[in-house]
């Protein structure tokens, strides 16, 4: 993925996170907690599980719909990102060749079953992470983490990092573009050029840090960064967490798909 595109995507997600829908208005802690609960539940399924994972698709679908999140944009990110999981997972069929199922008459090896399980888990977990950031502004997530006990120092510098990512990426973009315009088609950069770029960027970064520090001092900074924290936990958060918790438990403990399938079978026979 090239720099321009990555930067653009970052901006889109960031803008999405400031929308105003039902989901966006939930307390960030609610969303962080439920996302983690979702991921842990999905990942807790054993390696050959496929059917049990399917009901979990309900969660991303509901959040997409309630939060007005563009589906194709997120799906593209999930599908295009080539990741460790897929690369490693695809080796499963090579090593696990015992027959696990018969798909009508076709024998299916355990390796393929576990691979598809990995794919499903990958899809569900990736969607939930992206949906978290699409529906919760990053500062919101930071404040949620602080309230959940993450150390102050970590949170403060994380907020600074977030604030300056866009500034620094723009600066980097300008330098990369300037270099590209003088490269006449050679893709990427040689290592020495890269080192120069990074070195120059670093120098600019430190100079910027000095100026920021000066600006902080000018407004009375004495070492601690204070925040006025507003929003709180509301009724809707309580409802959301309970509903999610119960549903996650039901989907994990009970074989919903099998149930529906058997009901359907009975109806058709």
């Amino acid at each position, binding site marked *: 993925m090239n720099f321009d595109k*990555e930067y653009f995507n970052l901006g889109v997600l960031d803008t999405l996170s400031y929308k105003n829908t039902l989901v966006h208005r939930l307390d960030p802690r609610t969303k962080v907690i439920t*996302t*983690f609960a979702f991921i842990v539940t999905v*990942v*807790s399924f*054993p390696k050959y599980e496929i059917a049990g994972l399917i009901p979990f698709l*309900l969660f991303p*679908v*509901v959040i997409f*719909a309630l939060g*007005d999140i563009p589906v194709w944009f997120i799906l593209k*990110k*999930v599908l295009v*990102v080539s990741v*460790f999981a897929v690369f*490693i997972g695809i*080796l499963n069929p090579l*090593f*696990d060749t015992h*027959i*696990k*199922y*018969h798909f009508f008459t076709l024998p299916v090896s355990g390796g393929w079953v*576990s691979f598809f399980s990995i*794919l499903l888990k*990958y899809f569900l*977990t*990736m969607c939930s*992470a992206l949906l*978290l950031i699409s529906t919760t502004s*990053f500062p919101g997530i930071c404040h949620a983490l602080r309230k959940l006990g*993450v*150390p102050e*120092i*970590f949170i*403060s*510098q994380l*907020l*600074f*990092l977030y604030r*300056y990512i866009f500034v*620094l990426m723009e*600066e980097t973009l300008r330098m990369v573009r300037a270099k590209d315009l003088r490269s006449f088609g050679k*893709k990427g*950069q040689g*290592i*020495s050029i890269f080192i120069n*770029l990074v070195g120059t*960027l*670093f120098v600019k*970064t*430190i100079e910027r*840090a000095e100026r920021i520090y000066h600006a902080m001092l000018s407004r009375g900074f004495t*070492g601690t960064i204070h925040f006025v924290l507003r929003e709180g936990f509301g009724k809707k958060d309580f409802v959301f967490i309970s509903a999610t918790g119960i549903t996650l438990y039901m989907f994990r403990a009970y*074989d919903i798909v*099998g*149930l529906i*399938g*058997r009901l359907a*079978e009975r109806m058709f026979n």
Partner: protein
Amino acid sequence: MHMSDALLSPAVGATVWAGTLGTIAYCSKKIKENLDEKMIPMMGVIGAFIFAAQMVNFTIPGTGSSGHLGGGMILAILLGPHAAFIVMASVLTIQALFFADGGLLALGCNIWNLGFYPCFIGYPLIYKPIVQKGMSSKKILMASLFAVFVGLQLGAFSVVLETLLSGRSELPFGTFVLLMQPIHLAIGVVEGFITAGVINFVKTSRPELLESIAEIRSLSPETKMKKIVIAFLVIAIITGGAVSWFASSHPDGLEWSIERVYGKPELPEHETGIAMLLKTFQEKTAFLPDYTFKRKEDIKEQKTSDGEANAWPNIETGTSVSGILGSVMMLSLIVLIGFGIKIIRKKEAHSSKETSGLKGQGRS
């Protein structure tokens, strides 16, 4: 390489998270004790710099493939281990959220794999000692290469362990190791050169910058830490050695799975704390009433071991038909629910627009 949620089990993920959070808390405390006012904006902005730098492609000479900066060692050299770990953790957090790089459960592993080893082993035990005796550019290059190499090897090995202990991948230990370590050797060489290159660049063009950053850091926490880190390293080497011996002691050379060793597709018993809790949760949910074809499958799994060709009894066809039917219906239901919500919301938006339109007219 980034660890992924889909390859993790909750127990392994939670355990490594506990280690990562503990380290974050420790580093935060250490930084607070000697906090220079400039530290927090400096860390934040340098983090943003690493993030931006990581997104630039460069071509690796000889291979033609493109590479990216890791940055853990550069951070450790510039900011010292504690601040560097925190910055690395922050950068990875942003990546996990905005780029879905690995996932949120795996984030704990990624922070550990990519942050702990450069900051607490590579830098204090390798880079610093070499460079303390004189900072020539050759020394910096050697120190960087060696420190980065060790850091990456340890990180890559951790990925192997985390994947193996989670039991979602079928890749045998030996094959996995043979895959990961050489790749990270190559990555390490490139990263080492880049690290040294950047440090030398800044040293030559703006040495006073490096000095001003060094002033902001404090030196006392680092020297006391050496003993702890050496102890940890010794333990790690012993554990690593034991594991390798275990793997190599099997006749077919490379096959090693937890089921063989422990006799069941479960994790080792000596897990404590959250891991234990999660394991209990896992066990409890597997045996609740009204639990049908999933349960049979698990029981089958426990009774058979890997490698045996296993033809299921006829019930399996029945369950797989109901499984497929159920899946299709479930999917359709979910899609319907999704569209339903969208339609309801469109109607709501439409009607609220109408009423606000009326209000607008009424105002003038």
